[in-house]
């Protein structure tokens, strides 16, 4: 399921994911930057090219000022006074200052409902801005990397309660603005407690250990597979290939940390003719291809030995590895994204027809990471019970396609069964997406 390890970078499976524009323009490095080969992390954690960001910021500032950007609140369409105006989007707008000295200034007429804050950074450093409940610490909105001199919008849905803006300029302590009370009895909008890097260290260490414990199984598995092939027992090799591969497929959250080793162990071949014969095609899928395409044991000895060697090296090096805590939430979500993209499409099938077994192993991996995140997730995700039942449902329906070692190949699923698995997977993904959002690492001080 490792997209990043595809042997041909230009193949669709390895296409880079789009970057959300809002997040691409700079993000203070609160945590260790991820390795650029880690597809999922690169998606969110673009290492900011600081110089370029500032230059762009300056240009934007000039444009805003030239366009009369200072006029926020100038024309009071709804008569609410100088700070709340009705804009073209039909929503009430309030201009808010973001700076060390004046964080949150400008919120004169608090009111409930969906509304926009036009956040203007009048300071000299890029800043993160949170709208929080100062008592509970829950966040109602955030804006990352607001460049000096720029104005950007924060859309929020506010109920009755007390709020304060929090400004977190780069390299400076956080400043909390004045508390503001929205009157009345309106229910409050979506909010949750932020997660810090510190919060994530214990589960990350625990996960690293869990992976470490699996490494032994994995090395034993590829050792057995190699021995089968050396002996020329290809029936045993097929069986042992599957169990070793599934051990690997349960480790989904660690692939980013595995780095290039993931490509060597679990890479796929390009779709172009002849790519499966290319010497760079290696690892589990190379062996799978040979086993299920009638290649003789002699032809598989080298690939099996190489796989076993690479797995051994991965195991030996693991005690030195350091997982990025920011990976935890992302992987909790994206393991199943990869399952949907590469397993449920059959992209990674090289003849064994075991994509559903892989999907099931991926789900185990997701369960493990969710269980480690659970203490942090429980107070933060009110939809956790729905998420749990979505996991159960997919597991149940995948299990129905497995009969011991024999798994129904994708193309042999009946229509109803296939639709059910697609439905379960899609639903689970919708439930997992908030987990990644919640576990986006945030500064609090």
């Amino acid at each position, binding site marked *: 399921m490792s997209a990043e390890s595809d042997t041909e970078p230009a193949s669709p499976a390895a296409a880079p994911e789009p970057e959300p524009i809002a997040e691409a323009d700079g993000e203070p490095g609160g945590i260790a930057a991820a390795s650029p080969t880690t597809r999922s992390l690169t998606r969110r954690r673009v290492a900011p090219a600081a110089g370029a960001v500032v230059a762009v910021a300056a240009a934007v500032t000039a444009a805003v000022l030239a366009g009369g950007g200072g006029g926020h609140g100038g024309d009071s369409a709804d008569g609410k006074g100088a700070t709340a105006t009705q804009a073209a989007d039909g929503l009430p707008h309030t201009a808010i200052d973001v700076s060390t000295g004046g964080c949150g200034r400008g919120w004169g007429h608090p009111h409930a409902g969906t509304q926009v804050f036009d956040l203007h950074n009048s300071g000299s450093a890029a800043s993160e801005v949170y709208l929080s409940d100062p008592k509970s610490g829950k966040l109602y*909105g955030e804006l990352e990397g607001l460049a000096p001199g720029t104005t950007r919008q924060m859309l929020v849905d506010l109920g009755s309660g007390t709020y304060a803006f929090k400004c977190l300029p780069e390299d400076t302590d956080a400043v909390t603005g004045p508390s503001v009370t929205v009157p009345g009895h309106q229910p409050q909008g979506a909010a949750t407690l932020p997660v810090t890097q510190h919060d994530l260290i214990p589960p990350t260490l625990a996960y690293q250990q869990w992976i470490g414990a699996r490494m032994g199984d994995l090395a034993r598995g590829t050792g057995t597979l190699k021995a089968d092939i050396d002996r020329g027992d290809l029936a045993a090799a097929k069986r042992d290939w599957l169990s070793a591969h599934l051990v690997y497929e349960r480790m989904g959250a660690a692939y980013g940390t595995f780095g290039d080793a993931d490509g060597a162990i679990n890479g796929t071949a390009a779709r172009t003719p002849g790519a499966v014969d290319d010497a760079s095609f290696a690892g589990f899928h190379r062996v799978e291809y040979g086993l299920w395409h009638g290649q003789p044991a002699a032809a598989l000895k080298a690939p099996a030995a190489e796989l076993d060697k690479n797995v051994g090296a991965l195991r030996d090096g693991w005690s030195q590895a350091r997982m990025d805590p920011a990976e935890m939430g992302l992987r909790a979500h994206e393991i199943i994204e990869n399952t949907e993209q590469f397993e449920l499409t059959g992209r990674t099938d090289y003849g064994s027809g075991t994509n559903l077994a892989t999907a099931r192993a991926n789900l185990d991996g997701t369960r493990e990471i969710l269980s480690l995140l659970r203490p942090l997730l429980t107070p933060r995700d009110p939809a956790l019970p729905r998420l749990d039942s979505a996991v159960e449902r997919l597991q149940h329906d995948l299990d129905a396609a497995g009969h011991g070692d024999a798994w129904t190949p994708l193309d042999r699923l009946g229509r109803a069964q296939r*639709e059910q698995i697609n439905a379960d997977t899609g*639903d689970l993904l919708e439930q997992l997406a908030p987990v990644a959002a919640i576990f986006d690492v945030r500064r609090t001080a």
Partner: protein
Amino acid sequence: MSDTRDAAGELRRRGFLRGAALGVGTVGAVAGAGAATAALTGPSAHAATPAPAATPVAAQDAPFHGEHQAGIIRPVQQATAFLAFDVTAADRRELTELLHTVTDRARFLTAGGTPQALGITAPPSDSGTLGPQVPRDGLSVTVGAGASLFDDRFGLKDRKPLRLKAMPAFEDDDLDPAWCHGDLSLQLSAPHQDTVLHALRDIARHTRGGMQVRWRLDGFTSPPRPSGTPRNHLGFKDGTGNPDVGDPATAGKLLWVGDGAEPAWTTGGTYQVVRLIRMLVEFWDRVSITEQERMFGRAKDTGAPLDGSREFDTPQFAQDPMGDVIPLDSHIRKANPRTADTAGSRLLRRGYNYDRGMDGNGNLDVGLIFVCYQQDLERQFETVQKRLAGEPLVDYITPFGGGYFFALPGVRDRGDWLGRSLLA
């Protein structure tokens, strides 16, 4: 030609080709008929009947709430997506939840507005493909239930609309099971394709666990060329002859279910038939204009019946009992003989062109998403379809999919939801 085609079809097509090879005689006869047409359409042209709907392509809004779903009566729009879904919801409670969700999404999407702000708790609630504000763009969302929804899964067996069943294969059909039937139908229509796709993405996102797309075909309506009803891929104006369902009496007779024999919950609904019909346009383009016009019984340029001069002239079949002008087996004559006996079989057509790329043999894969609505499947659609069996047009078209659905009663107000009368 597919090998599942019936023997009669094979014979007829070969027959046609043989006729073409014979040449002159046949063409001469046709030309003669054309001359007769010209003679008739001169001074004796019938008084034009006013165009039923002045603008065949809707641009105006239709309110989401009402006794009937808005997309049924509403004229065709520029863009559409027609989908059939299989319900994956586990039980009746989940089905109810699913229909609530579809209703909520449809209500928001048809009204437009600011998508829900979810703060840091989730990715954005809207795809943003229509910008930060979802515009009110004339979207209509039409939902129907297929016969399979009334099997044992949801305890709805005793509630099946009287005439609802799986669409059978008709004489000239070549149905692909992958493109037929479904538990639910969903049609999204709007003036712009991005609005349709945005709505589809939104609804799918909110209902992934509860239903899965079984098949989907996107369609479009062309602009009037140069005027009047838009044309289909065969170059003919398509949609001219429709009952005036703006007239409540007509709609009550032909469209809305209200028959005492139907389950009470169906009131306000109507039977929806969709037929996915491939057109063999390359073949069609190799057929003479006279032949083409005689197949439909209408002129290709103006859309007028062959005995008239303007599009909305009413054909006078009674004055042409032998079919000298409008052949007896022409499409419009078979589809609507315009006699007192056949008045009850009229139906409301809301078809769209589709284009889904190329076929393996290098031909365009285009055709018609034929959609029609009627009070009674048998009295109307099936009767018309059977009358059309073996018409000359069948050599140039291949119905390959579709289904029968019951378009649910409308959502009356904010407290109501699609399927309430069925499930509550």
